[in-house]
């Protein structure tokens, strides 16, 4: 059990490091938002899974397990909304992408 938890923690640290590196290296806002999704998905999922495994195997009580599951569900439910809002806001603000977009349907159609 301990080895499984260690592997999960290592996976979480690795993908969080990838996300942090991406946020610092990417040239424009959209790339940074894409890279920060790595932190929200595997960085948080693996930490929560490791915590759930540990709490179950150590018998920390049901409330700790429930709280860990709630943290996981809340992060998975709320993070895409904030990413979507930021991406749309950055586009509406008129931030130019670092490279020319290959295809831009949003500007042609321009809903609402």
């Amino acid at each position, binding site marked *: 059990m301990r080895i499984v938890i260690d592997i999960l923690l290592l996976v979480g640290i690795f993908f969080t490091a990838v996300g942090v590196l991406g946020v610092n290296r990417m040239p424009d806002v959209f790339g940074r938002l894409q*890279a920060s999704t790595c932190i929200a998905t595997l960085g948080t999922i693996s930490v929560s899974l490791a915590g759930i495994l540990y709490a179950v195997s150590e018998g920390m009580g049901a409330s700790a397990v429930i709280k860990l599951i709630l943290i996981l569900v809340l992060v998975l439910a709320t993070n895409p909304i904030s990413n979507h809002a930021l991406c749309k806001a950055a586009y509406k603000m008129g931030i130019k992408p670092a490279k020319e977009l290959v295809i831009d*349907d*949003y500007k042609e159609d321009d809903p609402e």
Partner: protein
Amino acid sequence: MQKPSKFAVWLSTFLFCFLFWLLLTWSVALREVLWGVVISALVAAFSGRFLIHHEAFYLYNPVRLIMLAVYYVGIFLVEVIKANLSMAKLVLSSKMDYKAGIIRVPGSPEIKSEYGLSLVANSITLTPGTITMDVAEDEKGDNYYYVHWIDVTETDREKAGEVIKGRMERWIGRIWK
């Protein structure tokens, strides 16, 4: 689609908040449960109209919730891990050349409700490499997702939709109409 009555909206939001309260406090002492009822009623009265727009009791279906959990564990996790690995490959490469683009992807015709649409949009956003920017509906009633895609490999819209959300949308379409 008719609008639900005000009481149904209130009751649905109230049940949701109260279940959340019970899970969070994890005790059935009388005083805590009473406070939970009061606070949930207040919150539901204020915020119910923002949360639910049609079919108030759509979420309280155990089969649907179990299928949602199966979808997240079985299908979604695999997609997320694949997308994370390709994102890691992109970030750790020294050149970092990618071709970004915003593409209009047609949605599946069977998913019509707000619950299904938002679930698909959230799934697209949570896989690294794609972010849903907007969901629009045209005059014929078809839905479109505007997706910012960091590595455009396919500029044809139907095929791009298949690449971006093919498996996930088929799975959601079976349960969440």
